[in-house]
């Protein structure tokens, strides 16, 4: 029988991760809060409910699920989630984007931050890497799943569609991609900058199974990712089109591209933290 998911516990953790994100970005007055806040529920769900992974970190990733972040600029949410999952000490979050830190502005592997397997930041490359890792799992008879998160804006990169075509051609069915479908990018709404049009049809026509979800509802995202996982090993790669709101749930940040890469000032930080319950203690 499937274990009951403790949604409230996940929501509490998500609240703490969002506090971390805001404090990290505020401390160095640089970083990307909007997308990080919008994807927090997804990260918390993945690392606390969906994925089967090993701590301490195992670079080869054999015998466990793998996660890749293609839109590397939302590193704060990943770093906080990894720290709370036990990959490194939560206090290290205070070094984000500072000199000599393992928490680079965009994820890197050169300094070996546990939990991260490939650098990302230059957009459009994550799906290719994930597809390669998924094929290596097949060669190794490793019955685990590879997950990758992409921004919707980065679907404008041609490489994403090279990888999408490849994954279905080679029947990479142990791969679940998620698109952070917030409709925003640096220069404005995606529909104005470079319209993605009908993403569902696009992925379907590339031979993928498509799941749709609300990424800012913990119950919905947990169910969607479990459903996505249930569609694996059926001959097709799976994509989850995850609707989110950039900046969620901070009232003055929500639903605009303006907080894509802008840090809150002291007053805005206090205002935002006031909207998020402290559940585990700040780093």
């Amino acid at each position, binding site marked *: 029988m499937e274990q009951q998911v403790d949604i409230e516990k996940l929501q509490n953790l998500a609240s703490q991760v969002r506090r971390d994100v805001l404090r990290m970005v505020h401390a160095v007055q640089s970083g990307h809060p909007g997308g990080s806040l919008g994807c927090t529920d997804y990260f918390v769900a993945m690392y606390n409910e969906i994925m089967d992974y090993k701590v301490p970190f195992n670079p*080869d990733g054999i015998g466990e699920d793998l996660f890749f972040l293609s839109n590397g600029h939302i590193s704060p949410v990943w770093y906080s989630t990894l720290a709370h999952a036990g990959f490194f000490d939560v206090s290290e979050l205070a070094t984000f984007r500072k000199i000599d830190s393992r928490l680079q502005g965009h994820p*890197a*592997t050169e300094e070996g931050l546990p939990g991260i397997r*490939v650098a990302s930041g230059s957009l459009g490359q994550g*799906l290719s890497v994930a597809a*390669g*890792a998924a*094929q290596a799992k097949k*060669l190794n008879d490793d019955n685990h799943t590879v997950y990758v998160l992409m921004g919707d804006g980065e679907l404008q990169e041609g490489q994403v569609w090279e990888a999408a075509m490849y994954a279905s*051609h080679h029947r990479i069915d142990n791969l679940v991609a998620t698109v952070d479908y917030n409709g925003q990018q640096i220069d404005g709404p995606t529909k104005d900058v470079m319209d993605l049009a009908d993403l569902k049809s696009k992925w379907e026509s590339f031979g993928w199974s498509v799941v749709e979800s609300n990424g800012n509802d913990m119950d919905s995202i947990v169910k969607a990712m479990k459903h996505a996982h249930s569609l694996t090993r059926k001959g097709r790669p799976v994509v989850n089109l995850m609707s989110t709101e950039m900046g969620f749930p901070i009232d003055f940040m929500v639903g605009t591209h303006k907080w894509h890469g802008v840090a809150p000032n002291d007053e805005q930080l206090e205002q935002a933290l006031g909207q998020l319950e402290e559940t585990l203690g700040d780093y």
Partner: protein
Amino acid sequence: MKFSFTEKKDTRSGFGDGLLEAGKQDERIVALCADLTGSLKMGAFQNEFPERFYQTGIAEANMMGLAAGMTIGGKIPFTGTFANFSTGRVYDQIRQSIAYSGKNVKICASHAGLTLGEDGATHQILEDVGMMKMLPHMTVINPCDYNQTKAATLAVAKHEGPVYLRFGRPKWPVFTPEDQTFEIGKAIKMIEGSDVTIFATGHMVWYAIEAEAKLEEMGINAEVINIHTIKPIDREAIIESVKKTGCAVTAEEHQINGGLGESVASVLSRELPAPLEIIGVNDSFGESGKPEELLAKYGLSPEAIVEAAQKVIKRK
């Protein structure tokens, strides 16, 4: 002539045969190819190990990402396409997903340089060595003939870390031993000499050997050193030879900017200032033509090496 040959074979076949043998030796080896299996001579590997061969279609950026991802399961991926599409087209993918990420990917690049011939400048990349050697942690290798390319491929398979392995299209003299060992980063002294050192890489090693014979007829005693590994460069071999000869010529089938000559110049200027002449393509694209015609037109010939040697000796 201190070296001779009985047959001509293409260096890309050395790669293909080396890849097959490496695949037999180590089952972690996988190969990816972007619709150029025949050109890269990867067909034998594909036939022998179909489950370890991945056709990517004409999508080089994706191929580089796939290769990076495969290393995470402990695989040793060899990517294959033309040198042009192995470097410039996918520089950012190599930079982020492979080099910066420290991935054990072998980027194997055929049809490098002018000797691609008739296809012309769009395909004759002369900038690839420069691009690849600028990437931190990237090893850059340009072997000289079939046997050495095969040996290099086997050595690369055992080496941990990203490698750029560059080879060519035309049939070229096979003059190095079949049973050679290949040590990455260790230059090979082909001919001992005392008046001038010729440092050559790739196809140009054979021309350096021909140039040495011509110089000998003129009473000039040249040393010929095969720099198959451009990065890391063998500083000791360069310094030791130039200490003895007092001057040097470099020869490569690549743009002067960013090539072997500049690597040698960098070593010499810092550690042993000495006159140096650089043979390479001088800030130009190539054009269509027969390989040998092109090499001659762009100043890459045994005669050009001889002239450069005479000139550099006078500058001592």
